[in-house]
């Protein structure tokens, strides 16, 4: 893993992602007004894509960024818009959470809203674009039905009947108004989502309040682990806000890093934590600390290396991740059920992802071969 870069090397976006986490001297103040129009347009687009508008807004407020009146106005307006979306999403969250709770589903809020309320100095520091919920595997179907009855449409059909509640990461539901809810059974697709202790996520509870209602989420340590899963296993190049979450939790929120590593080891996912911390520290250019030293020197097991490849290799895809999950499924019967579901999916699922059974079989077989050849 590479070393932390110098302050001169980091881009303006990376700088914004670290605002409030590093000490800034006078010389390190960045000046947006010195940008050309094209540079500003690109930076502004980056702020929106990386969900960094609130951090830029606070950087202007505390003086670590300076800007022209026009730039300042745009960022302030963007911040207000991001927070308007956040409160609209939280209203939808309250509706869905209440319906699921009434139906006896032990639901937990994940990511955006929970992290904004519990892990940042103020929820207005953190923008988010959807609602994420975790439900126990045996209530996944009931939770899906509640969302469908409320007008949400599932984006991709279940691989095959029973796959979601036994093996799947979850499903994405979208409403006609464009709002989206990600319903999770576990924290990740593929092998790392199959080896974590799901029961512990429901056992260790934390609460936060929205609109006078107390909502349940996973513990601070589990939120940190989830943030690492999201940053290390999600997009090829994770959003800067995802990396900021990790740094925020470790540096400002004092997550017990050593305890988190112990849990990750039990989940066979230490490499995920190491990758996430390395990515965050290198990209945001944070001063080295114990967590970074550990991440940089971590040597993954053979299993971890193979599993991680499904998420990070050039030809990564949902199919390769799911195929790589075979090794993580317990027991021969479980592995057979998993492989059967992958190779003989439902017609609805195929029509959403592949053109035919034959195309699916070819892709599934290819993914399985690839997963084995890398073992």
């Amino acid at each position: 893993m590479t070393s932390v870069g110098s302050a001169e090397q980091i881009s303006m976006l990376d700088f914004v992602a670290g605002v409030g986490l590093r000490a800034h001297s006078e010389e390190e103040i960045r000046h947006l007004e010195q940008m050309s129009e094209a540079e500003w347009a690109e930076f502004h687009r980056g702020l929106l894509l990386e969900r960094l508008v609130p951090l830029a807004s606070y950087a202007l407020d505390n003086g670590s960024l300076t800007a022209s009146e026009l730039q300042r106005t745009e960022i302030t307006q963007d911040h207000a818009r991001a927070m308007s979306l956040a409160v609209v999403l939280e209203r939808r969250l309250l509706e869905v959470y209440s319906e699921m709770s009434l139906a006896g589903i032990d639901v937990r809020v994940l990511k955006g809203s929970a992290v904004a309320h519990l892990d940042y100095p103020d929820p207005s520091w953190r923008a988010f674009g959807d609602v994420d919920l975790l439900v126990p595997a045996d209530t996944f179907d009931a939770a899906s039905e509640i969302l469908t009855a409320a007008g949400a449409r599932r984006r991709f059909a279940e691989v095959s009947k029973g796959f979601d509640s036994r093996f799947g990461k979850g499903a994405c539901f979208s409403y006609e108004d464009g709002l989206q809810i990600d319903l999770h059974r576990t924290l990740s697709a593929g092998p790392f989502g199959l080896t974590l202790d799901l029961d512990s996520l429901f056992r260790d509870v934390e609460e936060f309040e929205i609109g006078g209602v107390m909502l349940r989420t996973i513990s601070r340590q589990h939120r940190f682990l989830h943030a690492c899963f999201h940053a290390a296993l999600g997009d090829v190049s994770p959003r800067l806000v995802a990396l900021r979450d990790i740094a925020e939790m470790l540096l400002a929120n004092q997550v017990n890093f050593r305890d988190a590593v112990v849990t990750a080891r039990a989940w066979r996912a230490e490499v995920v934590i190491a990758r996430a911390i390395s990515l965050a520290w290198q990209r945001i250019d944070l001063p080295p600390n114990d967590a970074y030293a550990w991440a940089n020197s971590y040597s993954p097991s053979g299993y971890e290396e193979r599993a991680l490849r499904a998420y990070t290799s050039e030809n990564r895809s949902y199919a390769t991740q799911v195929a790589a999950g075979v090794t993580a499924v317990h027991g021969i019967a479980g592995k057979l059920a998993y492989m059967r579901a992958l190779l003989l999916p439902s017609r609805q699922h195929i029509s959403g992802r592949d053109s035919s059974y034959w195309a699916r079989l070819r892709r599934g077989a290819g993914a399985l071969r690839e997963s084995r050849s890398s073992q």
Partner: protein
Amino acid sequence: MAKASAVIKQSPEVISRTGPFGVVILAPGDLEPRLLEGSACFVWDLLSDWSTREDISQSLAQLFEADLEVVSRDVEILIDELIATEALVVS
């Protein structure tokens, strides 16, 4: 409409965010979020505890060194709107 002496407070059911932009609130009776800016933020902040229109107007007039009558009119309009959307509860 609530009386001028009625005691009012932010409804706990309001979902909100406060920042350099002002205050974004989504009240039970609102279809869309509402952005409060400038002195409206100050009014909203005062309403985190039980208060009256008179007290709020006086605080605002004092802070901005403005005419109490003018301030009172603006406060009336804002508070009536907030009560109509259930952003405020009236004791």
